[in-house]
């Protein structure tokens, strides 16, 4: 475990927040700590009771009543200890899993409140690992670490006090040998750390190679690259093996070495104890108790050094989780929002002097003006990176404009709630998104309580009914991004069906048919035409054939509108649009 050290103030800050998280579990945590104290006390008591019982055993003069008394006390103690240790575990579980659940629920809500600028600029894998594994490591490591640390300290202190009280000489022997154990453990872990780092590095490289080559296995076989591939693999495999043998070996000598030191302590206690016993310093029962302690005493030392690393790791995991939970959220919706109903008010859209950029250093859209009448079809074309998709992001308020305003039906989109705005707009994107569930659930995603007839009807209009019927369980077939073996084109058709089920009064089609072959596209076009009828529609496409009937075509480049007009007007103009058209359709 590589515990990264955090800067001091961040660490202090994180610890504070951790305490806030622990707040609701105050009672349980107190119970855990008390239980740990009871367990330690009882576990220290049992060897004492055992020793006392042994002292009562004398040939011919055994005090059976006394022995029996101690035995009963041992039984009770064991029962008490077991009970509390069970309580400790149960309550720890509740705290650990409870905190995990709390944090994850918060994180799930957080995802919904974060601006897309955050989500687009952070790898989803990284966010997932914060919400899943960091949360787990944090709650697990923190609490286990804490109780282990606490009971470890108590055990050491308790043993020391008892030994010092009973017999200073033997206690001194133990205290003197202890540092040896610590030194040995520290020495070994310091030296193994390097080996593990090396092993992890090479291991990372090997995994990367395996990933690359397995993913590219067809390429390897295609180009007859097997021999070279194998040579490269063997080289790194050998390096990895050597480093691993060293790492595994050096880390595995910790245990025997510490055990050896324990044996020394044990022998030392035996020696001094026996010598004291001869001179009458202690009884044999006390010696037996000392011997048990010698066994118990060194164990917490090893654990504590592990615990410190674990706690550090837990804190840095917590810091990552908090960082996510505290990321800046979207601006609040207005307190007194306007309620938009495009179907009643009409869907004219006005863009007034809008400026926007993802990165302040690189302006993208500036002085953007556009007037769209209700029911018009607007096509947006232009080279990659021209700002087409950005424009869609702004209309949907996935991103907010830096300057200017976008109005729908005469009302600023910022005067209404985002949800209200989006309820009025249907959207199909180039990147398909399939949720793990049945086909029917996926189509019915946008309309709660949609009937099976409605779903099948939408599927038919989106031309996916025929392939759905051929799936193993038809509409009940379980699908996800990877499950169910759907092609990109089929997934896109499902996403279209989703919108077909409940067609909002305004539409955005962002490369909605990019994965569908041209002939299916034509078949689906009829359905699209019916869908767009009377609705303000924004179409982003690179296939010009799909947009030529638009009421207005906007040619964008570098965030600016370069040309606008109908297909015929723009062709006649002989500008950029003409150039694009020629490159697609006319051969030189």
């Amino acid at each position, binding site marked *: 475990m590589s515990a990264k050290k955090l800067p001091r103030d961040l660490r202090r800050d994180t610890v504070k927040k951790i305490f806030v998280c622990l707040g609701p579990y105050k009672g349980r945590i107190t119970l855990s700590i008390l239980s740990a104290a009871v367990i330690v006390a009882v576990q220290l008591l*049992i060897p004492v009771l*055992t020793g006392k019982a*042994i002292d009562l055993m004398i040939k011919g003069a*055994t005090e*059976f009543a006394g022995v029996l008394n101690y035995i009963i006390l041992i039984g009770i103690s*064991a*029962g008490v*200890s*077991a009970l509390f*240790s069970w309580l400790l*575990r149960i309550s720890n579980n509740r705290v650990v*899993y409870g905190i995990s659940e709390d944090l*994850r*629920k918060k994180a*799930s809500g957080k*995802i*919904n409140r974060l601006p*897309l600028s955050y989500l687009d600029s952070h790898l*989803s894998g990284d*966010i997932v690992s914060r*919400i899943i594994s960091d949360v787990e490591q944090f709650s697990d490591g923190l609490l286990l670490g804490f109780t282990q640390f606490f009971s470890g300290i108590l055990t050491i202190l308790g043993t020391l006090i008892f030994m010092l009280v009973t017999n200073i000489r033997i206690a001194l022997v133990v205290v003197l040998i202890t540092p040896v154990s610590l030194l040995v453990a520290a020495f070994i872990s310091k030296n193994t750390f390097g080996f593990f780092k090396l092993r992890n590095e090479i291991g990372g490289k090997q995994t990367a190679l*395996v990933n*690359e080559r*397995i993913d*590219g296995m067809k*390429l390897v076989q*295609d180009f*007859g690259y097997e021999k070279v591939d*194998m040579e490269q693999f063997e080289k790194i*495999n050998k390096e990895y*093996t050597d480093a*691993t*043998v060293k790492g595994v*070996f050096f880390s*595995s000598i910790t245990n*025997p*070495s510490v*055990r*050896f030191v324990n*044996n020394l302590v*044990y022998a030392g206690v035996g020696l001094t104890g*026996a010598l004291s016993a001869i001179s009458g310093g202690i009884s*044999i*029962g006390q*010696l*037996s108790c000392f011997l048990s302690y010698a066994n118990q005493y060194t164990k917490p030392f090893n654990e504590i050094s592990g615990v410190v690393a674990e706690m550090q790791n837990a804190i840095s995991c917590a810091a990552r989780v908090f960082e996510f939970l505290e990321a800046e959220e979207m601006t609040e919706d207005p307190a007194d929002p306007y309620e938009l109903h495009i179907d009643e008010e009409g869907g004219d859209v006005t863009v007034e002097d809008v400026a926007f950029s993802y990165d302040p250093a690189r302006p993208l859209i500036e002085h953007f003006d556009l007037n769209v009448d209700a029911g018009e079809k607007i096509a947006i074309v232009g080279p990659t990176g021209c700002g087409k998709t950005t424009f869609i992001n702004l209309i*949907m308020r996935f991103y907010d404009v830096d300057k200017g305003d976008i109005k729908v039906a005469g009302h600023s989109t910022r005067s209404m709630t985002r*949800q209200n705005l*989006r309820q009025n707009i249907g959207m199909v994107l180039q990147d398909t*998104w399939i*949720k793990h569930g049945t086909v029917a659930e996926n189509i019915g995603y946008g309309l709660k309580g949609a009937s099976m007839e409605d779903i099948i009807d939408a599927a038919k209009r989106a031309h996916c009914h025929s392939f759905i019927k051929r799936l193993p369980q038809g509409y009940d077939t379980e699908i996800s991004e990877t499950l169910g073996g759907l092609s990109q084109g089929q997934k896109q058709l499902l*996403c279209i069906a989703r919108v077909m089920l409940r067609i909002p009064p305004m539409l955005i089609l962002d490369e909605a048919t990019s*994965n569908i072959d*041209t*002939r299916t596209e034509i078949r689906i076009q*009829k359905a699209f035409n019916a869908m767009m009828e009377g609705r303000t529609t924004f179409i982003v496409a690179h296939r010009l*054939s799909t*947009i030529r009937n*638009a009421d207005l075509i906007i040619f964008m480049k570098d965030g600016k509108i370069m040309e606008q007009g109908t297909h015929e007007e723009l062709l006649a103009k002989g500008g950029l649009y003409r150039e694009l058209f020629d490159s697609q*359709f006319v051969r030189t």
Partner: protein
Amino acid sequence: MRLLGKYMGKYRFQSVMAPLLKMAEALFDLFVPIVMARLINTGIGNGDRAYILKQTGILVMLGVIGLIFSITAQYFAARASVMTCSDMRRDVFAHVHELSFRDLDRIGNSTLITRMTSDLNQVQNGLNLGLRLLLRSPFIVFGSVIMAFTVDAKAAWVFVVAVPLLGALFYGIMLKTLPMYRDAQKGLDAVTEHTREQLTGVRVIRAFVKEEDEEREFSARSAELKRRQLSVGGISSLMNPLSYVIINLGIAAVLYIGAVRTDAGLIMSGEVIALVNYMGQMLIEIEKLANLIIQMTRAGASLGRVEELLAIEPSQKFGNAEVDDSGNTAVEFDHVSVRYNEGADESLQDVSFTALKGETIGIIGGTGSGKTTLVSLIPRYYDATGGQVRVFGRDVRDYRKDSLRDRVLTVQQTAKLFSGTVRSNLLMGNPGASDEELWSALETAQAADFIRAKEGLDTVVEQDGRNLSGGQKQRLSIARAVAGHPDVLIMDDSASALDFATDAALRKAVKGLGDMTVFIVSQRASNVMEADRILVLDDGILVGSGTHAELLKDCEVYRDIYGTQFGGEEAGA
């Protein structure tokens, strides 16, 4: 398991010595309480300081020998387990090279990668732990019982009762919790999946205003996860307290019997202490043993998965013939059909055509019409299920794998590059190529300019070609194939990211490569129009074959495709 024997055989000495030495160490551990008993009984009893000193000496010596044995054993165990798994990993990797494309499709990359990484690591850990503890832990447990008998046979009966009780407890709880842990893991997977979906689908979720629903579903899933974790945690929480109770009841029993026996003068207090110590040792080892069994079960499952992979027989057999490109017909399809799965529809139905040497063949059709299937039969990525595919007059199945794949090269739809340099990637198909040859391939692929603008052939290619654009990757992968000087070059929709002018220049350059037979697969009529012959596929059936002009006249599907792309009557918007 048989597999494990085979691989460990190479490290037989280490594999045998490690557990034996650990057992020896355990033996020394077992002596300790006896020595201590003697030290107490004789040493203290007789007040014999010299004897006490001698026994302490023995204790230290036992410790030293134990340490030496143990460290040697750890070394052997580390070596044997790591090397065994390293050999397996190598063989798995080599085996994957032998698998056919169909095998690879069926198994899936992620499975292959997990088996080579986490599964083999799991095996290694299990093996390492097993070599160290499999003999030691039971040895200490049963050794303690036996030693107890040598100390005092009457009192030892307590052990005979305690051991099976502890065993039953551990076994029972493990049996009960193992499937519950799996359920909890599934619960965690469900939460993970939902988190991922919430992130990847954020635009759709917001567009459909489903935020609250998603949050509710997440809550339900994480509540279910917590429920499962708590219920398995509740049961496994019993393990420790209950075993503690059993051991202490055992100690109580030993004390009682010890009291009776001491009173009767049959044993002395030193022996009672020894018995108590053995109880303690046993508890520690049984805990380890339970842990070991869980680890070994997991490792066993992983080993099974690795074994399963190694046992897969490659589904293709290759012949011995060398490709001889002297003939005039490069590729022939003779009533070829392909059915990917039994009972499924045919992906390719009764296709016949001939491609002469030096010809350019265009292949066009909609998504799923069988274009890629058709060309993948030529280098034998897949085998025809009916009919015969011939390359230079011979059934492709006669050829040696490397000979056939050397002569037929494909540029795939998705350009794939390996990390390294431009040179190392270009050399893949032709290790002996000179720099001039590589540059000329880059020229053909229209890649020379941008490569020159970078650091030439030594330009670093990051993993997956991350530092290159889609179009650059495509051009490099074309150059890689061209540099291999194949007789048959297949370009499977491999120029989709190129702009029109570059694409046209590329096709022209490829055409000028002499008598190379070129297949161009595309959805776009503009890409295949100039080919010597165009094959039109529709739902796996060859519905047209001829030049552009011929097809426009005779083939409805082709007219359709052309019309939709070039603005015929049918085009709507």
